[in-house]
């Protein structure tokens, strides 16, 4: 769409005045493209995010844990759908986004390319991975694009359950045997650094951040959010009785914050490029689910064609 100067300045005023941009408003093409990329990547992350924990659904140690885990995986499917719906308000089609995920043209969060080796990983994912996701997502509730912000409000309400169930699971294990405590520590050791990487590369190496902040899509820099996460998490680790695997972790009186070590950014780049431990497996699984589900979609279409728009509602 050709931008009239008036449309452009109205868009800028809406953003500057903390109002929300809505689907049919004029917006710069680059703003639309940035949102499509970010919302699609976010949606894909929710959908792929079902897999690491889904690995333990059939082997949860009790019916209670199984019901909780199933509810969490269902939430993640739901979050993915809220986000695909928000992306569609920008003029893209969900089926097309799914295809781009499957053929590797769009990304999802690198964290889901790590394997879940023990049931303690389920707890640590809830505590650290969902905790980091909450840090990232709460500011998105004030994102300048209305449909994305509204989807995030709903998602954040539900994420709180995810984090708490994880922490409670870990407290239960920590109150168990020595072997169970070792299992928790092992999971923390494996997930801590990847969790810090969830906030993205350091500010100096994050090319799109500045523009996203000017557009009020993003509210805080990667490093600010990472610091916030560390400050929230260290006391939780102490209460839990686990050690965070970072020798550089130290309270900085002057800053009123925790100093911490530098994540291995080359590892993050490797995983983003597809060299992580589970990249191929995650996409294969997603493709198989899509293809195996084709008959359901075809049956629903055939049923609708036969019975008309109302289906069997009446």
């Amino acid at each position, binding site marked *: 769409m050709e931008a009239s100067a008036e449309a452009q300045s109205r868009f800028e005023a809406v953003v500057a005045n903390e109002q929300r941009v809505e689907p049919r408003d004029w917006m710069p093409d680059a703003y639309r493209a940035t949102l499509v990329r970010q919302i699609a990547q976010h949606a894909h992350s929710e959908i792929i995010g079902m897999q690491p924990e889904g690995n333990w659904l059939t082997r949860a140690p009790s019916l209670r844990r199984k019901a909780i885990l199933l*509810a969490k995986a269902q939430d993640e499917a*739901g979050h993915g759908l809220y986000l695909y719906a928000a992306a569609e308000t920008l003029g893209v089609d969900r089926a097309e986004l799914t295809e781009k995920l499957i053929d590797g043209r769009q990304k999802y969060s690198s964290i889901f390319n790590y394997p879940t080796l023990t049931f303690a990983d389920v707890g640590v994912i809830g505590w650290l991975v969902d905790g980091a996701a909450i840090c990232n997502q709460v500011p998105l509730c004030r994102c300048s694009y209305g449909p994305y912000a*509204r989807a995030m409000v709903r998602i954040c309400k539900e994420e709180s359950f995810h984090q708490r169930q994880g922490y409670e699971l870990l407290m239960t294990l920590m109150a168990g045997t020595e072997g169970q405590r070792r299992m928790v520590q092992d999971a923390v050791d494996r997930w801590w650094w990847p969790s810090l990487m969830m906030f993205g590369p350091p500010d100096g190496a994050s090319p799109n951040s500045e523009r996203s902040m000017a557009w009020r899509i993003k509210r805080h820099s990667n490093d600010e959010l990472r610091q916030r996460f560390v400050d929230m998490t260290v006391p939780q680790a102490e209460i839990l009785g686990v050690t965070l695997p970072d020798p550089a972790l130290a309270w900085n009186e002057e800053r009123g914050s925790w100093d911490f070590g530098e994540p291995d950014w080359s590892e993050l780049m490797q995983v983003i490029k597809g060299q992580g431990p589970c990249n191929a497996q995650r996409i294969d699984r997603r493709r198989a689910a899509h293809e195996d589900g084709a008959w359901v979609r075809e049956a629903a279409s055939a049923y609708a064609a036969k*019975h008309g728009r109302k289906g069997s509602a009446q």
Partner: protein
Amino acid sequence: MSGERASWPLYEVFVRPRRGLNHVHVGSLHAADDRMALLAARDLYTRRNEGVSLWVVRSDAITASSPDEQDPFFAPSGDKVYRHPTFYPIPEDVPHI
């Protein structure tokens, strides 16, 4: 691979959070027909007792005003301050008004 789904219409979903409140728009979804839209809306938007009643409406059945919030369409109400109770000065000692 997914052509059959691309043809599924978009539905807008409205939830009544509890008796006595209006249905409120909560989002949208794709479904093959009305019945499927209703079931999907239940699974997607009311996993935690968010509602006691659901409406699903085909998006293409909605007629909307122009997107522009400065639109002259709404101009008729813009200059009629006398429609608001605060337009009328009443002495402070007049009770119950």
